[in-house]
Structure formats: C-alpha cells, structure tokens
C-alpha cells in the first residue's frame, strides 16, 4: 500500500511539474496585411482575405498588391486541446481621416495538435463605406486575438 501511494504522489508531482514549466507561447509570424488596392469609393465594396490566402472582392475594388492572412504560432499548450478564440472587430485608421472596419474573421483551426502546437491562420474582411473619402496612404490598426481553453 505504501508503494502504491508513493506512485500516485509521483505521478501527480510530474503533472504539476509539467503545468508549471510548460510555457504557453503565442508568436506572431505574419501580421494581417490587406495589401494595396484602388477602388471607386463612391459605392461600398469589400476585400476579403481567407486563411489560405484566397482573395475575394466585391464592388469596384481592385487589388494592386496581394493581401496576406495573419499567421500566429501557438506552442506549449495541452495536446489536442480545443481552444476558444475570439477577435473583436477593429478599424484601420490614418490620423484625422476615415477608417476601414475589419470584421468577419475566419480561423484555420481552433485546436492544438498532438504536440500542443497550432498554426493559426486568420483571414478577415476589410469593409469600404461608399461615399466616404479615403486618401492614398497607409492605414493601420491592431487586431487583438483572445485565446483560452477550459
């Protein structure tokens, strides 16, 4: 009996050790880049980049440089762990000017693999409001990606 109890304690200690020393890391490998485009801003349009890089447009919007989906690498998570990932809509802005709403995020995965890793690709949609003025320049913002698991 003593030996069996000692074995249980040993296993629990190992588990505790694993939890404490396994660092859950989230690394950005590629930021969300909607590329460069021209458009007739008198009417609404949008630009969608999917996680696998497919670009779709609606309305009079023309891609000059190809967008890229965001790429995030997760490591040190529990193996085969279902994740809860949420991203709030946000804006790409320039100082003192109009802004683009970014919404409708698409995720490539919501679970880790057998090693506790995951490569998370994030697509999104850039929305152009018709009738607004968008001058030629760069617009930027930040996408907050929330990741949790039970």
């Amino acid at each position, binding site marked *: 009996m003593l030996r069996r109890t000692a074995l249980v304690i040993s296993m629990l200690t190992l588990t505790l050790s694993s939890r404490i020393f396994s660092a859950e890391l989230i690394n950005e490998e590629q930021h969300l880049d909607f590329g460069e485009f021209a458009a007739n801003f008198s009417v609404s349009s949008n630009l969608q980049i999917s996680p696998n890089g497919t670009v779709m447009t609606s309305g009079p919007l023309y891609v000059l440089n190809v967008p890229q989906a*965001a790429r995030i690498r997760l490591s040190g998570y529990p193996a085969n762990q279902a994740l809860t990932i949420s991203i709030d809509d946000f804006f790409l802005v320039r100082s003192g000017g109009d802004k683009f709403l970014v919404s409708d995020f698409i995720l490539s995965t919501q679970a880790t693999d057998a090693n506790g890793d995951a490569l998370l690709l994030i697509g999104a949609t850039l929305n152009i409001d018709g009738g607004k003025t968008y001058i030629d320049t760069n617009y930027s913002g930040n996408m907050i990606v929330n990741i949790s698991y039970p």
Partner: protein
Amino acid sequence: MKSLILTTVTHVTRLAALLLLAQSSYATDANISIPATVTVNATITLTPGTDMDFGQFYMTGNTVGDTVGVGAINGVPTPNDSAYIELLPNGTLIAVDGDTSKASSVIGPGVPGTFSITGAALSTAVKFTSPELIDGDVASAGTRPFSSGGGDIITFTDLTIDTDGDGTADNDLAVTGDGAVVNGVTDAAGALTVSTGGRIYSTYIDTTDNNLYDAGAYTGTYTVTVSY
C-alpha cells in the same frame, strides 16, 4: 501502519485539489495584439502624349445658327448649317460642308491625340468620361474653343476615344443619353495609351454667327477623366 496510510491518502487528495486549482488558474485567457495594415493607392496618373492635329484647312462661317440637337454637331451624320472637320482616332480627316458654310481639308492626314494612363490597377477596366465626349444622342456634347489668339474661335466637340488601338472609337460608347462612357482595360502593368479624335466646327451651337477666321494656328484643350 494503517493510520499512516490514511494520512498519506488525505495528503494526496489535498495535493490533487491544489493541482486542479493550479490548472484552472493557469489556463486563463491569453491574448496577442497583431498589427494590421492596408494601403490605398487609387491615383491614376494621366500623361499627355501627342497633341491632336487637324492639319490645315479652309473654313467659312455659316450664316445661320445651328439648333441644338439638329445636325452633325450632335453625332447625327447629316450636317446642317455648320461645316466641320472630323479627325478620326486613326488620323483620317473628313471635311463636311454645312448648308451655309464650307470646310475643306488642305493638308492631311491629321494626327490623333494620345495620352497615357499609368499607375492604375493591373489588367483592370477603366472608364473615360469627358464633357466633350460625343454623346450619340440628340443632346449636345460640351464644346471647347480653339483660338488663334485673335478673331473668331473654332468650336471643338464630339470627342472620340480609341482605347484598344483598332483606329475606331467603338469602345462601348453610350448610344443614348448624356454622360457617355468609353471603356478600356489597362495592361498587366496597369498602363494604357489611348488615341483621341473629334470635330472642329465653324460656329457655335444655337447662335447666328457668320464667323471670320483669321489665318493661323488655332489651339485649345479638351478634358478627360479616367476612373475605375
């Protein structure tokens, strides 16, 4: 010995509880802030090329004013009082007399105008509009004065644009209504060069004006807007 075993089991239970708590607090939300960017570049650069050249010609002013919507000045092929010289986008000059005016080309062929688009979206449809663009209906196209710097002016109107290099202005010109649109497509580098033609008339529209034209070079401008 029995008592010792029980104590150890209790200890293990507490330890397990601690571990569960540790797991719960460790698996809290994590977040990362990822930069996001986009660049807008909707500017199309227009660069004038060759000036439109109607060559040399004789022209006499008409003695009766034209009526808006009647005659060749609005794209209707039957001339009335105004005489005109037409420059096709391939350089051909056509002289047409009016009922009370005369026009004849002396030295030809003419030279079509050209201008280039750069910096546009690649292999993309663009549209050309102009107040002077021929409408194809009974409404009047806008006019621009061609002046020699003295004396009466010649009227330029009925602008035509050839966007595909075939020498004809048949690129989806609207056949009815104002606001005619000519369509074109940029090349793989986002560029396109077009040719232009038009007509110069011996009189203003809807006026009575027996023009007297001084000998000399007449110059003017026309305007074109290119958009997506």
